[in-house]
């Protein structure tokens, strides 16, 4: 694998993770539990879409085959997507969406803070921009975990159930392969193993505050680094890609 191939794959991983998460979150548009939350999740989705667009634009440039970010988003199949599995999990109820978001925001804030020191100027720039936005996202998701956890029996149970469902997918965020190894050596990629202890500490504090118990067992579902996904991604792509695939030359 050349550095260029590694960087292309790394950019796809980051871009796809943002794109698919944003696509999932935007399913709440018009369906939020009340107006302010509807606006909040829509705004958060928009920030993450923007980040995904910038990252996929850079991926297309790194690949150097004349593809655009739209080509990458709309004309790749499941096996060519590298989004983290946690992002494609169904939204479930609002509690599940919020707890998924809290796990991801906690990871993302640490990750993009490190990436902003990357030797790759484009990645560092996109990361520096994202930190400001993720700070708001994390404050939002953490405060709702706290409220649901200390709310009613119903809100607590829904939050705990959501956590149980999403938990096995969180560990994959820290998985590294030969792409990471190569790019860490060049000072481009973030060494994910350095982020894990702090993430675990922050999340266990959050869970304790909300009276939640992390599920027993350490099973971690992986696959996305190799382009292996659950069936959920297929449905997301079918919906997201249907229009451009039907009219591939359309412009707007």
């Amino acid at each position, binding site marked *: 694998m050349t550095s260029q191939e590694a960087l292309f794959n790394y950019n796809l991983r980051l871009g796809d993770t943002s794109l698919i998460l*944003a696509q999932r979150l935007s399913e709440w548009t018009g369906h939020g539990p009340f107006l*302010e*939350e509807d*606006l*909040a999740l*829509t*705004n*958060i*989705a*928009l*920030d*993450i*879409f*923007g*980040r995904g*667009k*910038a990252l996929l634009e850079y991926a297309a440039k790194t690949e150097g085959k004349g593809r655009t970010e739209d080509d990458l988003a709309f004309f790749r199949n499941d096996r060519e997507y590298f989004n983290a599995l946690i992002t494609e999990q169904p939204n479930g109820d609002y509690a599940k969406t919020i707890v998924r978001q809290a796990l991801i925001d906690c990871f993302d804030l640490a990750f993009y803070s490190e990436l902003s020191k990357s030797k790759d*100027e*484009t990645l*560092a*720039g*996109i990361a*520096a*921009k*994202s930190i*400001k*936005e993720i*700070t*708001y996202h994390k*404050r*939002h998701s953490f405060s709702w975990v706290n409220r649901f956890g200390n709310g009613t029996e119903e809100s607590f149970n829904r939050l705990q159930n959501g956590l149980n469902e999403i938990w096995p997918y969180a560990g994959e965020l820290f998985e590294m392969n030969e792409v990471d190894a190569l790019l860490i050596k060049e000072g481009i990629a973030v060494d994910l193993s350095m982020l894990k202890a702090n993430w675990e500490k922050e999340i266990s504090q959050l869970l304790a505050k909300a009276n939640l118990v992390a599920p027993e067992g350490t099973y971690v579902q992986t696959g996305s680094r190799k382009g292996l996904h659950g069936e959920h991604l297929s449905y997301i792509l079918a919906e997201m890609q249907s229009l451009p695939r039907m009219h591939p030359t359309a412009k707007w």
Partner: protein
Amino acid sequence: MQTKENIFSLLSEIPDPEIPVISIVELGVIRDVTFDEKNIEVKITPTYSGCPAMKQMEDDVRKKLIENGFETVKINTVYTPAWTTDWLSAEAKIKLQKYGIAPPEESTNDKSFLTGKTKNITCPRCKSKNTMMVSQFGSTACKALYKCNDCLEAFDYFKCI
């Protein structure tokens, strides 16, 4: 041949598509221009990564420069340095307030915005400080939703990033 000053004053005629009382130059998104007689490149930075108004701003910049004699306009989106509300001029902040949007009250140098301990925001309508945040996320990415406890009006706050 145009001067940089001329070009910035041309671009100052373009309003922010979402907050038309301030120009895109006052907003701080136009970072630089490089040009010769026929060709111009404009460096533009997004306020928020996903700000849907960016495309509109690019189209408006292109149109304005073509109308003023340039043959090719290249728009280059840059992410560094990241946009900050610190770039809003004092004048722009007054315009925002008159328009009914509370301007950012802190500088990003004090890190209170990171911890969520925001100052009491002044109601742009009655100037009361007795206000409360309804939601960190408002009608556009750059705004939060507040409510005045005195005049009871809801208002947008241009949040500090």
